[in-house]
């Protein structure tokens, strides 16, 4: 392809024939219009910032998972039929186990490189979800979800859910003692659904737990249904990124109406393409050195056996924590129906927790009523309430995650498991509130510091002694670039209730919803919610008095 652009059209060619690359491109252009596509996109500008790489890690981890996953399907047998193990792993020889578990052992011990592929697959899956989380944090804390990117935020959120679902169905497949325990947990959770829970359980498992259907069914969900949906969503996600053009941080020459960076071809392509290989290479090295999910030490699943330290993969840990924190609440209705609140409550809280995150952009937009497009990534400190909400959510998530491993904390730190659980029950409600207040204050403090820097310059650390003996610190005025970057963000004004009466003196009715909105808007953007950025007048007033100290 590159030759097509390098060769000037009028240049004489040897033998009068275009280079091979150009001829291929011509052929393709006549059929799918590659030149128009390339004109629009080949030199497309992508801004550079380390945090923009987080999304790339997600994409690359996904590709790695697909590649290794396809390889694993060549050997994995998604069947719960019982066989006697005859492979080369001596401790399990002669043990009755499902074909799923036996084939997992075969992949690990009898297929050369099979263990490596399994470990890359599993590690990449863990890293995939980690990267999604960090990518989402980047988008959230810089306000990159604002118009026009709300839909892409939702696409990304759905990808998080699908990634969790694919992970869950994936680590359930080997049918070892740990994964079977996880499936049993799912069965219990489904049974807790009121009215239809028992039917759902029978339908999912094709009868009583564990039956023979769950692994073949999870297999098709894991390798076809969910990845298929994810591929579709990822493509849509990427198309929207190209369409919207990437956000960038404010800086000299970087405005809301442009995007500054390097062209896709060649710089961005080389960097992003190279980054794929870096990620893949690192995951391969991790897989080579750090064993993950060694199913052979656990043995096959039996419903009457269990191992301690039964933990899900990390991204399901918070749901585990919600379940572990619950008190034993169970109600029998009319003497004949059981409402298992101990499981039902987490089943309801979990989607609410995630939903709060997914819908936050729409909430913020409802508060601001902002209809403009936003392409400048905000600094987290300049949106204190949003940042505080985000960190509070993370602390909430973290408490649940810690509670999900309460037995590990108890063992490794010599703590009482009961105390950890009681602590978690309280912390789940208290910690997010405390974190919210603290983070908001930190943001306001940082805003004040920015303001001081703009108005008074940078502290140089140089102490000067004046003729009359006073010591002062010399402040160095900021460069024009810095001044611009620190003042480029716009600040919302708090919403106002309309006057109580209109022009004709008729009392205006203001709905409750609008009143609530105005209140929230005030707490977001009022004096307690943000520090006014310095105005040109303030700046001039202070700088004109240069030489005087205060």
């Amino acid at each position, binding site marked *: 392809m590159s030759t097509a652009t390098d060769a000037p059209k009028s240049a004489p060619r040897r033998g009068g024939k275009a280079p091979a690359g150009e001829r291929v491109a011509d052929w393709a252009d006549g059929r799918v219009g590659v030149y128009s596509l390339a004109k629009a996109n080949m030199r497309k*500008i992508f801004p550079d910032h380390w945090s923009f790489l987080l999304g790339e890690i997600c994409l690359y981890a996904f590709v790695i998972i697909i590649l290794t996953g396809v390889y694993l399907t060549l050997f994995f047998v998604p069947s719960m039929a019982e066989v006697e193990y005859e492979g080369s792993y001596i401790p399990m020889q002669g043990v009755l186990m499902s074909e799923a578990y036996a084939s997992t052992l075969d992949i690990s011990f009898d297929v050369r490189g099979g263990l490596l592929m399994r470990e890359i697959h599993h590690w990449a899956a863990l890293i995939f979800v980690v990267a999604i989380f960090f990518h989402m944090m980047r988008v959230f804390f810089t306000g990159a979800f604002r118009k026009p990117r709300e839909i892409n935020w939702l696409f990304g959120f759905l990808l998080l859910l699908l990634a969790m679902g694919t992970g869950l169905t994936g680590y359930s497949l080997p049918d070892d003692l740990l994964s079977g325990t996880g499936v049993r947990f799912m069965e*219990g959770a489904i049974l807790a659904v009121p009215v239809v829970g*028992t039917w759902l359980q029978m339908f999912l498992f094709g009868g009583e737990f564990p039956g023979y259907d769950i692994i073949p069914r999870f297999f098709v969900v894991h390798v076809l249904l969910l990845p298929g949906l994810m591929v579709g969503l990822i493509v849509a996600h990427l198309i929207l990124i190209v369409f919207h053009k990437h956000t960038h941080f404010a800086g000299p020459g970087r405005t809301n109406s442009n995007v500054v960076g*390097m062209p896709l071809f060649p710089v961005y392509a080389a960097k992003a393409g190279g980054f794929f290989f870096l990620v893949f*290479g690192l995951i391969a090295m991790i897989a*080579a050195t750090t064993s993950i999910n060694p199913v052979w030490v656990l043995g096959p699943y039996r419903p*009457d056996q269990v191992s301690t330290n039964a933990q899900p993969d990390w991204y399901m840990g918070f749901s585990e924590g919600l379940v572990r924190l619950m008190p034993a609440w169970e109600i*029998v209705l009319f003497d*004949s129906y059981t409402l298992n609140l101990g499981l039902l409550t987490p089943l309801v809280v979990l989607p609410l927790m995630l939903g709060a995150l997914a819908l936050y952009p729409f909430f913020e937009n409802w508060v601001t009523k902002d209809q403009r497009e936003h392409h400048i990534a905000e600094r987290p400190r300049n949106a204190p309430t949003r940042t505080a909400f985000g960190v509070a959510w993370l602390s909430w998530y973290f408490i649940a995650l810690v509670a999900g491993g309460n037995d590990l904390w108890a063992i490794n730190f010599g703590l009482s498991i009961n105390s950890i659980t009681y602590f978690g029950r309280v912390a789940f409600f208290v910690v997010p509130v405390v974190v919210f207040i603290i983070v908001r204050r930190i943001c306001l403090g940082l805003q004040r510091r920015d303001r001081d820097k703009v108005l008074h310059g940078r502290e140089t650390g140089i102490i000067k002694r004046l003729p009359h003996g006073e010591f002062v610190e010399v402040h160095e005025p900021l460069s024009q670039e810095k001044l*611009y970057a620190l003042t480029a963000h716009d600040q919302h004004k708090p919403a106002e209730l309309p006057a109580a009466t209109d022009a004709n003196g008729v009392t205006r009715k203001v709905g409750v919803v609008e009143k609530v909105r105005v209140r929230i808007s005030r707490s977001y953007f009022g004096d307690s919610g943000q520090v006014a950025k310095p105005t040109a007048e303030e700046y001039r007033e202070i700088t004109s008095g240069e030489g005087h100290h205060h």
Partner: protein
Amino acid sequence: MSSETGSSKDVSEEHLPHKQDPGAVTVADDPFADPGLPAHEPRKQDIDERAAKRSERVVTLLFALSSVATVGFIVSYLLIPIDKIVYIWPFGHVSGLNFALGWTLGLALFCIGAGAVHWARTLMSDEEVPDERHPIAASPEVKAAVLEDWRAGTQESGIGFGRRKMMRNSLLGAMALVPLSGVVLLRDLGPAPGDKLFHTKWEAGKRIVNENTGLPLRPEDITVGSLTQAMPEGMDLHDHDFHSEIAKAAVMLVRLEPADIKDEQSADWGHEGILCFSKICTHIGCPATLYERQTHHALCPCHQSTFDLSDGARVLFGPAGHPLPQLRITTNEDGELVAMGDFAEPPGPSFWERG
């Protein structure tokens, strides 16, 4: 999308800063004005050909290293036996093949990436270029034209402006019904629950056998302070329904000093202080068999529900909603422990119809 802006051929370097630079007048006007893109500062490689050559050599070396690693991968695959265990500090005893394959593959990939990134950072242009954005929303003219097209389309379809409502509604009705077939097809995913969850393999006179040995248990086999895992006789690991049945029928036997048993009915249902409880946790169904002989507590390792086996398996801690069901036991004429019937209530996690 951005067909008219994408090409940077027309965005030549000299016209960039000028267009952005608002000039000194505006800066004086507004102290926080955008000074525009800073001038490009050349890297060492841009001005020093020797530095550029050095970068080229580093990139080439990385790519060559990758090729060597790939050869190493193939050689390892062919030469290292799959069951070879080697000691490698600090990882300990590891599979030699896995270690070699992982490192060579990792290096082969990583070096390609490192080479490409180093090339991009040192030898490709690092000049930042702006690209204008355009409003996402269509202009009013485009919108008006689309609405006009829409009107024309609905008009031509014959159902525009409220005409032929019956036809339209019948289509909507048919479309709404069609997916029902798909829903109906799901019926055979599984059987109706019926009373499946209410019954287990236990029945009157069924002997209680040790889960490991399969031998019938006698009262003298169960000592005070011990916990014995057991199941109904006649269950074989090779049975088609073994897992489904053991998931409900698995029990544990403990022996307490009769004076220690606080719950009268529980003592009654046991035999000489031997109590037989379902070991399937009533929370989500893990075996709750971590037994503390001093306190008679049984703990479930999954979510730490704790049951007091001396008090009818009452829930002491954790999320389980009700006690572990107890199996009524006695001995038969041969002195073997037997069940006196099925559990009085369904074992395992609770469900809606459990009551």
